[in-house]
C-alpha cells in the first residue's frame, strides 16, 4: 500500500523519492535510447519502443503517427543531441508517467540544410503488459 502511494506521488516522504528517482532514470534511459534509434536509423527498435497509438508533435508543427514516424526516420539525420540534466518525471497514474526535459538537437531532413531545435519536450509513457511504451512526444520551442 505504501509503495502504491509512493508511485502516485501522494505520500510517504521516505519511499516516494526512491521510486520516483528510479522511474525518472528508467524513463530517461528509454528516451535517450529512442534518440539513439533515431540517430542510428534503427527502425525496428523504434517500432518496439513506440505504442501502436503513438503520436509525435515536433516544434515545427509537424506531427506523425507511428507509421509516419517510422517512415520519417529514413529521411532524418540526427547530427547532434543534448538533453539538459534537469529533467523530471511525473507519475500520473500507476501506469502513466510523463518525462519533462529540455532538448537541443541538430538534424537534416532529406539532405536539406541542418536545423537546430531548442525545445521543451514532454514524453508520455504508458505501462502495458509490464512494459513502458511511448505514446506521445511533443515539443514546444523555447523562446
Amino acid at each position, binding site marked *: 500500500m505504501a509503495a502504491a502511494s509512493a508511485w502516485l506521488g501522494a505520500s510517504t516522504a521516505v519511499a516516494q523519492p526512491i521510486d520516483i528517482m528510479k522511474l525518472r532514470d528508467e524513463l530517461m534511459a528509454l528516451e535517450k535510447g529512442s534518440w539513439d534509434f533515431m540517430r542510428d536509423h534503427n527502425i525496428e527498435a523504434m517500432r518496439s519502443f513506440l505504442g501502436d497509438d503513438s503520436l509525435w508533435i515536433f516544434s515545427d508543427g509537424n506531427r506523425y503517427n507511428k507509421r509516419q514516424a517510422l517512415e520519417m526516420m529514413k529521411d532524418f539525420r540526427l547530427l547532434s543531441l543534448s538533453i539538459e540534466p534537469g529533467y523530471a518525471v511525473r507519475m500520473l*497514474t500507476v501506469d502513466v508517467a510523463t518525462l519533462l526535459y529540455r532538448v537541443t538537437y541538430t538534424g537534416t531532413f532529406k539532405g536539406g540544410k541542418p536545423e537546430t531545435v531548442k525545445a521543451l519536450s514532454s514524453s508520455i509513457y504508458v505501462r*502495458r503488459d509490464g512494459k513502458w511504451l511511448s505514446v506521445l512526444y511533443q515539443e514546444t520551442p523555447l523562446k
Partner: protein
Amino acid sequence: MTTRRSLVLAGLLGLAVPPARAQDKPDVAALREQIMALEKESWEYLRTRDRAAMRRFLPDDAVLIFSGQRYDKDEMLAHMANYRLDRYEIGPTYGLRVIGPDAAVLIYRVTSRGATRFDRTATDKVLATSLYVRRNGRWRAVLYQETPSTAANPGEGQ
C-alpha cells in the same frame, strides 16, 4: 453489439485501450465530448480570469507548457493575473486518444488572441494536447502543452 461497434470505431480512429481492460472501455465519443467540455471550461476560466475556478480545476501536480515556458499550478495561477485572453476558438476536428483505462489525451487546434501585461496583443495558432487522468472517478487535467501550428500542418484533431 454496442461494445463490438465501439471497438471497431476505436480501431478506425486509431485509439488504443489495453485488451486486458477491454471490459472497462469507455464510450470514446462520449468521453471525447466530456473531456472537451472540461477543456472549454478551463479556457473560460482563463478568459474570465477566474483563478479560484482554475485552482479547483487543476490538480496540484498539473504542468502546462506554452509560449516557450513551463508552468506548475501555482505559476499558472500567477500567470493568469497578468494575462488577458480576449477570445479563443477551438477547431471542430478535435480528437481523443484513450491511452489507458484512466488516461486520455485530447488533441485539438486552438486560435487565441490576448496579451500579457505590458506586451502587445497577439494571435496564437497552436496544436494543443491535454492529458487527462481519472482520479477518484474524476477526470483531471494533468498535462497541457502547445506547439505552434504552421500553415502546412494546421494541427487539426488526429
